[in-house]
């Protein structure tokens, strides 16, 4: 029999299963929200929600444990890769990922991220680079752009005394243990889609046991940049992307 169905709607977009739906404490327009959603979508797509484990950082996304509907822990500032190492080494069948800000990962926690990558820990790292310390009120991060004013570089980052930006993808891709290292941005729908793909690829790297994977996401902190959210996204495109070129920095096929 040929049925003519009543006029219906199809869901094009809704909150992924791997998110709890708890409202976030993030500022209006903060890209942590988008980054969270992409990770949750990737988890849903790969069907790994029940074996995924989040290691949340100290930073604005310390609350991430509350937003993902998966088993979660919160690490000490910068130590998420070490904590994740502990979690993964004792249960290698789980999919363990850290979610870290740039202060957390590139400043206080640079030793832990480098060594996790160096050892080729089979972990995934979602690295949200917003060029400042969001949570503590916008101080300079190792990723702050030259000349950029922050609450701890009030006259702008002077590279002679405060150094140049540290580029984590470039650095980590030097390490033999790193299997997949990519940088994406969240400044437009198109870039958001690409970011999602990279996140999926990073998780796949782990699922296939190929070693350390990291996706760096250029993101905005409208509050501390003191910009409207829309302008902040533009600023990512015009100011951050030139210094932090997007792309795949390492894709190792063998494990």
């Amino acid at each position: 029999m040929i049925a003519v169905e009543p006029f219906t709607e199809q869901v094009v977009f809704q909150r992924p299963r791997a998110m709890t739906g708890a409202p976030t404490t993030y500022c209006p327009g903060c890209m942590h929200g988008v980054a969270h959603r992409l990770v949750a979508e990737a988890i849903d797509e790969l069907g790994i929600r029940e074996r995924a484990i989040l290691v949340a950082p100290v930073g604005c996304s310390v609350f991430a444990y509350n937003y993902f509907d998966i088993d979660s822990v919160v690490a000490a500032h910068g130590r998420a890769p070490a904590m994740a190492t502990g979690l993964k080494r004792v249960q290698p069948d789980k999919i363990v990922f850290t979610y870290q800000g740039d202060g957390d990962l590139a400043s206080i926690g640079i030793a832990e991220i480098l060594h996790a990558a160096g050892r080729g820990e089979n972990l995934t790292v979602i690295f949200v680079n917003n060029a400042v310390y969001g949570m503590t009120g916008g101080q300079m991060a190792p990723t702050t752009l030259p000349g950029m004013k922050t609450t701890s570089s009030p006259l702008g980052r002077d590279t002679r005394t405060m150094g140049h930006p540290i580029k984590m993808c470039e650095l980590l891709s030097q390490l033999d243990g790193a299997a997949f290292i990519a940088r994406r941005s969240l400044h437009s729908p198109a870039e958001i889609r690409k970011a999602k793909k990279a996140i999926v690829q990073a998780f796949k790297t782990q699922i296939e046991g190929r070693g350390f994977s990291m996706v760096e996401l250029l993101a905005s902190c409208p509050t501390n940049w003191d910009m409207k959210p829309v302008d902040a996204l533009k600023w990512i495109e015009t100011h951050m992307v030139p210094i932090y070129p997007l792309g795949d920095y390492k894709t190792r096929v063998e494990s």
Partner: protein
Amino acid sequence: MAKQLMKGNEAIAEAAIRAGVEAYFGYPITPQTELLEYMSKRMPELGRVFLQAESEVAAINMVYGAACAGRRVMTSSSSPGISLMQEGLSYIAASHVPVVIVDVMRGGPGLGNIAPSQSDYFQMVKMAGHGDYKPIVLAPATVQEAVDLTALAFDLAERYRTIATVLLDGVLGQMMEPVELPAMRALPTTPPAWAITGAAGRAKNSVVPFRMQADDLEALNLELQRKIAEIARREVRFKEYLIDTTSGSTDKAELIVVAFGTAGRVALSAVKAARQKGICVGLHRPITLSPFPDERLSQLADEARGFLVVEMNAGQMLQDVKLSVGGQAPVRFYGRTGGQVPMPDDIALEIEKLDEMTGHPLDHKIEGPVALRPVDRPARRQETSRTSRN
């Protein structure tokens, strides 16, 4: 099982393995390193996890992670390394996950030296990290005890979901003594309900070392305090020598030496020697430094003429002894620092001084057990604390 002659460090490692430790994360540091090296060999043989971390900071956070997964896990280090773990330990305490830490203390402060010491007492017992918490601290005095207390540490850590530490010094870490090792325990088959193992077929679990709201964080603290109180009620352990003996030729002790670990066993030699000279002295050796045997000491204080605290530091446990004695008897101190091990002769001399100071009975060579004279409440200023080099 036949006895084996083993180094303290290696015996502890083997004891942990037999207690079912599933993962070890650590960083080399003298005088603890043999423990790590032993683990590097044995753990992979057993299909368990050994990982040399990039630092003590990383090691404690790896331990934290594995503990969150509900696994039996430990690390070991020595004084400067333990200092670096303080932030992590505070996080672990806030998270109510069980971990075992072995600290083989060395001379400090700073890089100090690699000689034995007990100057991590404060750092371990008074919790060195920020916040209000208190690990269980077990202080062995022999290699055999180190073995037994290591197993106990895992039990207590899991029972109370707390940090349990085995605190010893370089003497015990490096010394060989005959030990009887316990049988190999089976590994636990299912992780505890709170463990972070993936939210399969159940609601998600979280381990969260913070509470944004002050009242929530206070609730967490009250839970920690409740735990501490329960542990204090149930887990105090100590060993006494020549105190309160009702049989034989030894007298009830009028003077009490209090010392833990290596200082405790050296003091035993001194106490025996002093007994030979007819001084009625006994030894109280706390085995749990936390919970501290304060009730027992306070009981002893009711009858004792005086206390001598001997430590390989400048006077740390001394404070807890004084708090327990509560002004009821004079408390003297003899401490050596910087890696010096006190010698029996020196302690014996201090016992004699205490004996004189507290006015020993005229006929102090009594034959059988006797009731003690009631003790005058001492003038406060007599409770001197000092570091002596004699």
